[in-house]
C-alpha cells in the first residue's frame, strides 16, 4: 500500500464537498493534479480552500465526493494512514520535543530504524538549513526557523503529497520572499505534488504551476498563473487577480474582437470575456493599465501616492465610479484628469450576471 502511494501519478478530487451543519463550506471541488506539479488553492478567507486541504489531509471527513491517488480511493483512510506531509499555518510543532525529535516524529511512528532515521533527519535538516538548531526546543526558535522545522518534519517522511496551509502568513514580508524560494526549491527536490493554500495572489503566482481560484466553496477558475493574470474567466477572478477597476457601461458597438462601451458619454473599448448577453457590461482594468491620456474618462483626482517607480491614485470618474490609476508624476487632489487604457488591456464582462 505504501509503495503504491509512493509511485502514484495522479491525485484526483471528484465532486468533493463538505458541510458544517447547514453551511456548505465546500460545494463541489473537482480537479486532478499530476505528480511533480505545484498547485495553489487561492481565494479569500472563507472560500473553502482550507476546508478542501483538511479534507485531503484526512483531518476533516468529507460530506460528498471522493479522493483518489491513481486507482486507490483514499478519502476513506484516516489521516495517519494517508502519509501526506502537512505544514500548518501556525506550524504545529510539538513544543516539548527538540527540533530533531520533531522532524523525526513521522519516521519514529513508521518504525524506521534508528540509523536510517538519523541519516534522513540530517538530510532534512540540511535541506532547510537548520544544522545549528537541531537540539533546541521550538520555543527557542524564530518564526522563520519554526516554519523550516515544520517543512522538514513534513518532507522527511517523503510524502507523495505535501499540503501547505498558508505557511507563510505569520512571517514578515522579507522572510516570506525568502521562504517562497525555499519552498519552490524543496518542491523541485522532492518531485511530489505540493498543494498550497493561500489568499495572496502574488504568492500563488510566483510559486504555483497551476492555480485553483475558489470563492464561496466553489472553483471559479483553474489555470496557469499567466492564464489567470491575462484571461480571468469571471469578474470575481479578475477582481482577485488585481483588476481593481470595475467600470459599468452600456454596450454600443462591436468590431472584430473588441467591444465598445459607453461610460457616462465617453467610449471605452476592450476585449469581451464570455458572451455578453444584455446591453450592460462591466469593464475591468488593472490600475497599472489606466493612465492619464489626452482623451478618455474624465475624472477628479482624490488621492495620489508615491510607490517607487510610479504614482498610484484614485479618482472619481463618470457617474461617481471610483477609478484606480497609475501616473508618471504627482497629481493634486481635486485636479481634473482624463484616464484611458489600451483596449487590449481592458476586459469586458457581462453586466447582468456579475
Amino acid at each position: 500500500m505504501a509503495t503504491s502511494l509512493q509511485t502514484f501519478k495522479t491525485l484526483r478530487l471528484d465532486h468533493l464537498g463538505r458541510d458544517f451543519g447547514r453551511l456548505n463550506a465546500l460545494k463541489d471541488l473537482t480537479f486532478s493534479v499530476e505528480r511533480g506539479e505545484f498547485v495553489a488553492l487561492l481565494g479569500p478567507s472563507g472560500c473553502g480552500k482550507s476546508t478542501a486541504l483538511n479534507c485531503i489531509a484526512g483531518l476533516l471527513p468529507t460530506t460528498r465526493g471522493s479522493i483518489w491517488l491513481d486507482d486507490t480511493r483514499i478519502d476513506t483512510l484516516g489521516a495517519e494512514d494517508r502519509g501526506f506531509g502537512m505544514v500548518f499555518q501556525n506550524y504545529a510543532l510539538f513544543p516539548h520535543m527538540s527540533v530533531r525529535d520533531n522532524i523525526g516524529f513521522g519516521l519514529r511512528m513508521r518504525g524506521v530504524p534508528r540509523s536510517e532515521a538519523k541519516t534522513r533527519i540530517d538530510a532534512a535538516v540540511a535541506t532547510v538549513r537548520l544544522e545549528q538548531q537541531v537540539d533546541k526546543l521550538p520555543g527557542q526558535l524564530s518564526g522563520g526557523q519554526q516554519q523550516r522545522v515544520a517543512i522538514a518534519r513534513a518532507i522527511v517522511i517523503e510524502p507523495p503529497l505535501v499540503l501547505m496551509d498558508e505557511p507563510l502568513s505569520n512571517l514578515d514580508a522579507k522572510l516570506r520572499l525568502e521562504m517562497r524560494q525555499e519552498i519552490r526549491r524543496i518542491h523541485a527536490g522532492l518531485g511530489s505534488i505540493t498543494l498550497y493554500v493561500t489568499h495572496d495572489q502574488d504568492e500563488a503566482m510566483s510559486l504555483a504551476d497551476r492555480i485553483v481560484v475558489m470563492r464561496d466553496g466553489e472553483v471559479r477558475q483553474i489555470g496557469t498563473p499567466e492564464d489567470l493574470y491575462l484571461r480571468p474567466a469571471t469578474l470575481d477572478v479578475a477582481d482577485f487577480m488585481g483588476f481593481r477597476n470595475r467600470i459599468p457601461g452600456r454596450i454600443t458597438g462591436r468590431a472584430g474582437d473588441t467591444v465598445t462601451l459607453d461610460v457616462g458619454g465617453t467610449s471605452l473599448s476592450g476585449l469581451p470575456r464570455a458572451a455578453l448577453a444584455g446591453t450592460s457590461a462591466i469593464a475591468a482594468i488593472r490600475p497599472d493599465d489606466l493612465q492619464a491620456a489626452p482623451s478618455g474618462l474624465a475624472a477628479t483626482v482624490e488621492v495620489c501616492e508615491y510607490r517607487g517607480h510610479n504614482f498610484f491614485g484614485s479618482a472619481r470618474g463618470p457617474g461617481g465610479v471610483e477609478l484606480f490609476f497609475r501616473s508618471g508624476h504627482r497629481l493634486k487632489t481635486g485636479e481634473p484628469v482624463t484616464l484611458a487604457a489600451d483596449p487590449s488591456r481592458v476586459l469586458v464582462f457581462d453586466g447582468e450576471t456579475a
Partner: protein
Amino acid sequence: MSVGDTPPPPLRLRLASHGLDAVTLLVLPAAALLVALFVYPFFYGLWLSLHPKDGSIFGNYVKFFSDPFLYETIGKTLWLAVPVTVLNLVAAIPIAFRVRRMRNQRLLTTILVLPITLGTVLVAEGMLNYFGPQGWFNRTVMTLGLSATPLKLVHNYTGVFLSLVITGFPFTFLLVLSYLTGIDPVLEQAASTLGAKASSRFRHILLPLLVPGLGVTFCLGFVQAFSVFPSAVLLGAPAGPTRVISIAAYEAAFEQYDYSLASAIAMVMAAVLLAVIVAVMSLRGLFYRGPASGGKG
C-alpha cells in the same frame, strides 16, 4: 546637552521600571488579609506547638511519634488520600478527553459541580441513606440476588473513600479538562498526519504536555483529601481504620483541651502535605512545562 547633564528620572518612573506603581498598592488589602488569616495563625500555631504542657520544647512531637494511636494517623490518612487522588485523576483523564469534543459541555459541568456546592456533610448524609443496610443500593443488590446480605459500604474505609471520590472527582475533572483544552488541537492533527495513531498521539503528544497540569491537579486534590474530617467521622470508623490525622488534632484540641498538642499535630500534617507536594512538583520538573501550543499565531 550631553548625557551626563541629563537629570535622573523621577523616583516614580524608577519605581515603575521595577514594577512598583500605584496599582501595586491594590495588593495591600489582600496581603494584610493573608497575614492576618494565614501567616500569623501559622506562626502562632508553631509557637504553641513548641510550648507543651510538660515544658520541654519538642515534647509534643516526641509524644506524637511515640504513641501509635497518634502517629498511625499519618499512614491511615495517606492510605485514604493517595488512592483517592490517584483514582480521581485516572478517571478524570478519559472522561475529560471525551467531554473535550462535546458541544454541550455546560450541562455536564453543572451536574459535576453540584457535589462541590452541596458540601461534604450533605453528601455524607445522602450516602448514609443510599449506601446503608436499608438503602436503595443494597435493596437493589439484594433484589437482583447479587448478594444475600447487605454490603457494608458505610461506617468503614469504603464509605470515606467513596465520599472523597464523589466530592473530589468533579474538582479533579474540571482542572484536568481545563488543562486538556489548553493543548492546541492542531498538535494532534499534526501528529496524525505524521502517521501517529490515537494511542501514540496520546502517549507522545498529549500526555507529556498534560503531565505538569496533572501534577498540580494531584497536589490540589491531595491536599483536599488529606485534610478530610467530616466524612471520616460521619461515614467512616473514626476510632479505627479511618482515624485520620485531622480527627487526632480535633480530639487533642476539643476533647483533651491540649491546644499545644493539637497545634503540633497540625504542624505534622502540614509537613506531610508539604513533603508530598514537593515530591510531586520536583517530579514535574523533569517534564516540559512551557506553553502547549504549536508555534506562533
